[in-house]
């Protein structure tokens, strides 16, 4: 058997909710590089109900493109044969069939229940509901809810070590009374992870041990000041493989194709975003915009939080984005004269035929409008969990009393986010990279100076799972082939009451010095290629802040990218005119500034505006 250092050909797949993506990596001249890709619809559903069909189809595309033989009758060929067929290692992630769906429970909503939610999300799960003693629901309502949920797994937390036992056992009793059934399969025990007060283990075991696959791990919140999610996360991953994946259609077969545990897609993605943060020693926000979910990751001053927003996605869940965001919020990003009812019909049609792709530019613009809202909503959800531990006693000096953010607010300050990166089919496959940059800017509204990046062809989950067996290869490919630098976004915080210059800049780079102004409400693009860095002096208007306080100068270094250096002076929060004509005019200007869409889009907006004016 080869050691990882001897691997030359590595195959990874991601069985997504909509599409299965295969990626082949190869060692060339001592370097690990991305070699080829193949995609096919996921076949978790009827009539196939066997994910390996989709995997075979995706890998077959790779075979066709490379001329290699990677599969045999029994599945992926590994290790490689003497004839050179097959790969050295095969790994896979999965979010098909609904991913890992969990219910979590704790004693206090904002304390142990929130820690449990963070731990489940951290493990890459979709959290269906959070039950706590103080969640405002009556006991019978909670029982009814637990009964109807049918999760893949339950995580119970509650009580610090040596703290309440009664309330923890009460939660266990609620679950026992509800007798929930597992989502997949009939007649197997629902897995439950208990990560609460050590002193409640025996009564919890007594209450749940017989009828459930109960796994007891260290307390998620041993002290109020300490959150310890790792043991719970590890247990979730273990039970995910043992109980959940083995019951999903075709996974029993897929599990035999690889000896590396199948990882939930968000767990794979998250690994690469944390790698980016560690590698660059920066604060990172990452997003995986998928067909069924939007996964947001933040690494901020060493704290990592992952959220998976179930039902916010671009295909299966597109109508939930419509429902949550409302049609008005989607329409504000569409510069064309289209009836809202037509747009909502189209989104419903996308939902019922999730694997279709936009053929016309109008359809593309509509999808991008929805994507902006999915990103915005996903980030709002993320911020609710990216916050300090509630319940911790703090000593407040005078300075902190005035300065400290409330513990219920997010600690994420967009001004201190250095990197904003995206992955997922829509972002990775956007026909122009400027479209991805604009989507990230509109969805997250970065402030100050922020580097923008994206996954080149969607391979972050693949590299995430590969890194469990060959971290060096994963990291090399991530740096060289996966992470595309889009550029740097400079966006002053604040708004100006009157029109005028928002920002003056002086850019000093290889090709000379460029100076300029950016009016408030506009975007300006300065080409600066991926390998370039430049010194920049930013002078914002008196009400605007680029990181040094309102009206203060900032001297820093910026990096280029395939899009370039983007001055986004549209205001923070972003200002979109309510008046139709002005809104369209603004969208036209913003799209044009980045050359985000083909000329036909701009012509149509102009002609529709003229028509409306007449």
């Amino acid at each position, binding site marked *: 058997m080869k050691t990882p250092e001897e691997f030359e050909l590595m195959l990874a797949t991601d069985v997504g909710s909509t599409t299965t993506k295969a990626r082949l990596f190869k060692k060339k001249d001592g370097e690990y590089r991305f070699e080829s890709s193949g995609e096919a619809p996921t076949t978790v559903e009827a009539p196939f109900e066997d994910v390996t069909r989709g995997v075979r189809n995706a890998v077959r595309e790779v075979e066709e493109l490379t001329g290699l033989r990677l599969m045999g009758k029994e599945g992926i060929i590994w290790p490689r044969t003497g004839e050179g067929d097959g790969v050295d290692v095969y790994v896979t992630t999965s979010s098909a069939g609904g991913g890992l769906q969990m219910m979590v429970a704790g004693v206090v909503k904002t304390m142990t229940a929130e820690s449990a939610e963070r731990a489940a999300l951290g493990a890459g799960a979709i959290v269906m509901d959070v039950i706590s003693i103080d969640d405002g629901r009556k006991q*019978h309502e909670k029982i009814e809810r637990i009964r109807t949920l049918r999760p893949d797994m339950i995580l119970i937390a509650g009580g610090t070590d040596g703290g309440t036992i009664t309330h923890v056992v009460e939660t266990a009793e609620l679950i026992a009374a509800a007798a929930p059934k597992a989502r997949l399969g009939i007649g197997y025990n629902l897995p439950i992870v208990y990560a609460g007060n050590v002193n409640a283990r025996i009564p919890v075991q007594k209450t749940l041990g017989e009828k459930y696959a109960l796994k007891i791990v260290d307390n998620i919140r041993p002290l109020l000041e300490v959150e310890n999610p790792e043991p719970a996360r590890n247990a979730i991953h273990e039970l995910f493989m043992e109980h959940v994946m083995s019951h999903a259609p075709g996974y029993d077969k897929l599990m035999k194709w690889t000896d590396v545990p199948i990882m939930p897609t968000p767990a794979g993605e998250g690994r690469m975003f944390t790698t980016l943060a560690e590698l660059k020693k920066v604060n990172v926000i990452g997003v995986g915009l998928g067909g069924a979910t939007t996964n947001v990751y933040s690494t901020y001053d060493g704290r990592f939080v992952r959220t998976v927003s179930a039902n916010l996605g671009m295909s299966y869940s597109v109508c939930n984005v419509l429902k949550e965001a409302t049609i008005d919020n989607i329409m504000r990003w569409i510069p064309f004269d289209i009836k809202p*009812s037509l747009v909502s019909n189209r989104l419903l049609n996308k939902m019922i*035929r999730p694997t279709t792709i936009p053929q016309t530019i109008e359809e593309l613009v509509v999808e991008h409008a929805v994507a902006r809202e999915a990103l915005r909503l996903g980030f709002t959800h993320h911020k609710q969990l990216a916050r300090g531990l509630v319940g911790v006693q703090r000593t407040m000096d005078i300075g902190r009393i005035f300065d400290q953010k409330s513990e219920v607010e997010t600690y994420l300050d967009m001004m201190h986010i250095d990197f904003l990166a995206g992955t997922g089919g829509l972002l990775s496959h956007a026909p122009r990279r400027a479209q991805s940059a604009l989507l990230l800017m509109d969805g997250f509204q970065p402030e100050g100076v922020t580097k923008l990046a994206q996954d080149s062809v969607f391979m972050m989950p693949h590299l995430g799972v590969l890194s469990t067996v060959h971290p060096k290869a994963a990291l090399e490919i991530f740096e060289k082939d996966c992470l595309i630098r889009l550029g740097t976004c400079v966006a002053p915080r604040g708004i100006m009451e009157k029109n005028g210059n928002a920002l003056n800049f002086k850019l000093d780079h290889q090709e000379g010095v460029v100076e300029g102004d950016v009016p408030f409400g506009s975007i300006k693009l300065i080409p600066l290629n991926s390998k370039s860095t430049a010194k920049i002096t930013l002078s914002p208007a008196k009400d605007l802040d680029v990181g040094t306080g309102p009206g203060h100068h900032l001297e820093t270094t910026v990096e280029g990218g395939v899009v370039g250096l983007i001055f986004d002076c549209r205001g923070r929060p972003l200002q979109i005119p309510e008046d139709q004509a002005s809104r369209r005019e603004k969208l036209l200007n913003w799209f044009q500034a980045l050359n985000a869409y083909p000329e036909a889009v701009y012509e149509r907006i102009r002609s529709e505006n003229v028509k409306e004016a007449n």
Partner: protein
Amino acid sequence: MAQAYTPGLKVKKFTIVSKTRRLPLPGEVLVREGENVAHDQIVARTQIPGEIHMMNVANLLGVEPEDTNAYMQKKVNEPVKTGEILANRTSFFGLLKSIVRASVTGTVEMVSNVTGQVAVREQNVPVELNAYIPGKVVQVMPGEGVTIRTPAALVQGIFGIGGEAHGELKIVTDSRDETLTSEKIETSCNDKILVGGALVTTDALTKATQMGVRGIVVGGIEHEDVIKFLGSEIGVAITGQEDIGTTLIITEGFGRMSMSAGTFNLLKSLSGRRASINGATQIRAGVLRPEVIIALEDDEARALTEEVDEISGGMAPGTQVRIIRDPYFGTIGHVSNLPVELQTVESESKVRVVEVELEDKRRVIVPRANVEIIEY
């Protein structure tokens, strides 16, 4: 070549339909393998545990949780009636008495000496499962359910609302392009499954429900009409549980969509026949599409077996397809070419494409992901 296209919805004048009827919890199967069953025959039944009611007896009696058992008048597994004494406590030489009475009739399921909670479970609720389709029982899963098989005509819809229903098919529009309005729903539509054209209006749906129409099968519906009919927005496409009286099945998509000629003509040819329909749709995880099943007699089936050729799995020149996205949404044609190389479409995406010759002889290029095979 990998298959980068959507498998189509089935519109078949003859196929073999198998339906597995599974109990939500283990129970009893009432039919035997080989037995012929009617659509409304009960094939299996079980008992679903009743509602659970919890009360903190220790708190109500003012005792420590660990002492709860000592005050219980009813023990675990003992039946109890509403108002009966569940637990009591006498203090001060019998002068003070605290009583906890059962709030429901059921069985004491749990007494916790950690929390002081007592759980009483109401009586089990019987659940019966009918056959849904007439046919032969071909498999019995003891304690779990059965599989029933029948030769049938089958139309799969793309989206539905409401659960299983049964009734006679009645065609209420003259063509597949017409709108199914309230005027077309008469008293004779009671208990029927109506087949319409391109669109159903809210008024028609409301009237259908009032008139006791069992189901409506139509090409399309406006999103806003779905909201009006359901009283809420559709978030995720998991349907079938709606309590709306009339099951709705759309065959093409949202908006005005002419029902495909194949679907309309097939249903028209079966007008007056009894059908089993189900609006349940689940696009994600184990795709479930709404369906119209018209069971056929054995001799009909035999005649059709010889007539109908099953098409093979893949897409090839000549395969009939439906385009399922703009700008040609809803149009039908035949595959005329399958270029291997990626092509750039108007949105500037580089994708695998298919050339389709439409019914009006125009040849158009569309992404392969935007067509589905029509399986007649």
